[in-house]
């Protein structure tokens, strides 16, 4: 019956009290005159309560005079009464209208700009470029041409492959995708040298084109010439070649890790003091005594941000700081355990450094105890290709 109720609400109805002696006769004459009464309730011997529509009520008054019953309104319900009351309060309507306008206008501005997806391109330069093009906090969302800005950004930043700007309410999200820059490969027709990529000891040189200038056992540093693209023979002018080949060399990856053998642990004594603060932006207000009564303590911070709806949060933080009184306790660590930890850490680090195709030849581990510290030195010797092609610049032709 929700439909009926809604209908009644929009038509408007009143709850009336009818007083009289022959109320049944009154109800009957209502039926005859097509006045719809509903929810009729007996209140007392001479009084009933009933619901009646606005139009029905007007007809009812004429009827009540005839039957000698007294009709009085108990409550008015529905939209017409409400609208009537509202008509008298013009300022209220004006205020509601005004606040609606304010909300609409306020939500047409961009409040924050987010840049995501950039790794190599500097965020600041991207942002300043966006500001120059008109996309900044405070600009009107209808005034900025997003597609145009996207194109301009693409033109300005060569490193970007794609730019997408999306407006989510008052937030602008600028998503960028960077170009994947391939390693420079020199064209086959261009003459070049092969130089060393890293420091190492030459193990094997396979010169497929060009003259090898190093031999097994030579120590080279990064940038040293390995295979020359300038070939000169007797009775001939030097010719320039596109030198290439593989140069296998032993290279060394090293990592030194130092650790303390005794650590100072803080242990709670059980004493506690709590400070509550309210933070609005950078401003922080503290309540009660904010002095910490302990010299040595452990601080546990607890931040809460009241959420309004989904992830819209109030800019107010409630910070609860709990200070626990603490005592220092020195603890000796087990040397073997520390060694194991260092080892694992070093291996993890070095494995990230070594190229995948390299072949591991040897691993050297050296532990040294210096006073209260332990120092672990890890060296991994690998065999890898250190050849790198480099253009010959000083060509004289």
């Amino acid at each position: 019956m929700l439909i009926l109720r809604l209908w009644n609400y929009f038509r408007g109805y009143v709850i009336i009290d009818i007083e009289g002696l022959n109320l049944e006769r009154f109800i009957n004459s209502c039926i005859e005159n097509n006045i719809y009464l509903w929810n009729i309730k007996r209140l007392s011997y001479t009084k009933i309560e009933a619901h009646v529509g606005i139009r029905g009520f007007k007809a009812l008054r004429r009827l009540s005079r005839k039957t000698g019953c007294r009709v009085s309104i108990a409550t008015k319900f529905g939209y017409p009464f409400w609208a009537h009351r509202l008509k008298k309060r013009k300022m209220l309507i004006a205020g509601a209208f005004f606040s609606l306008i304010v909300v609409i206008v306020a939500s047409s501005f961009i409040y924050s700009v987010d840049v995501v997806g950039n790794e190599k391109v500097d965020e600041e330069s991207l942002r300043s470029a966006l500001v120059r093009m008109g996309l900044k906090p405070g600009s009107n969302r209808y005034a900025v041409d997003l597609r145009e800005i996207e194109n301009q950004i693409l033109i300005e930043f060569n490193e970007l492959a794609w730019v997408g700007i999306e407006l989510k309410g008052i937030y602008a999200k600028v998503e960028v995708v960077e170009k994947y820059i391939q390693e420079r490969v020199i064209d086959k027709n261009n003459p070049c040298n092969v130089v060393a990529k890293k420091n190492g000891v030459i193990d094997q040189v396979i010169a497929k084109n060009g003259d090898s200038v190093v031999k097994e056992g030579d120590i080279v540093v990064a940038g040293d010439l390995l295979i020359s693209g300038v070939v000169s023979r007797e009775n001939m002018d030097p010719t320039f070649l596109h030198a290439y080949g593989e140069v296998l060399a032993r290279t060394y990856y090293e990592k030194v890790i130092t650790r303390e053998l005794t650590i100072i642990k803080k242990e709670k004594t059980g004493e506690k003091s709590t400070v509550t603060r309210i933070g609005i932006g950078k401003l922080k207000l503290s309540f009660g005594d904010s002095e910490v009564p302990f010299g040595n303590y452990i601080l546990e911070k607890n931040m809460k941000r009241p959420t309004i709806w989904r992830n819209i949060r109030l800019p107010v933080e409630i910070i609860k700081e709990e200070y626990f009184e603490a005592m220092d306790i020195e603890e000796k660590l087990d040397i073997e355990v520390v060694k194991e930890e260092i080892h694992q850490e070093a291996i993890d680090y070095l494995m990230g450094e070594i190229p995948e195709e390299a072949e591991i030849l040897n691993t050297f581990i050296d532990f040294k105890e210096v006073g209260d510290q332990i120092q672990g030195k890890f060296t991994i010797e690998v065999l890898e290709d250190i050849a790198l092609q480099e253009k010959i610049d000083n060509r004289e032709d």
Partner: protein
Amino acid sequence: MKKTEAIKKNIADALELPQDILLDLPKITLVGNLQLYVENHKGILEYSSTRIRIFTKSGILRIIGKSLLLKSIVVEEIIIVGEISGFEFLD
């Protein structure tokens, strides 16, 4: 009057027409003990929260119950809600 009634009844029987329409009899529907629909009534005679009397073609219909309420009342139908304990026809 009695004769026309009898003829009407015979026609209704022969043609299997619903008698409440042809003979203008009340049709009473009871939903549990909560709601009572009376169609084809001839007016209300008494109404209080424990007793309601309605005039119909088959006599006076008396409904007894507790906290009775006239949910809706129009020319052809009365809806009574409340705790209905019984109803009967009186002459």
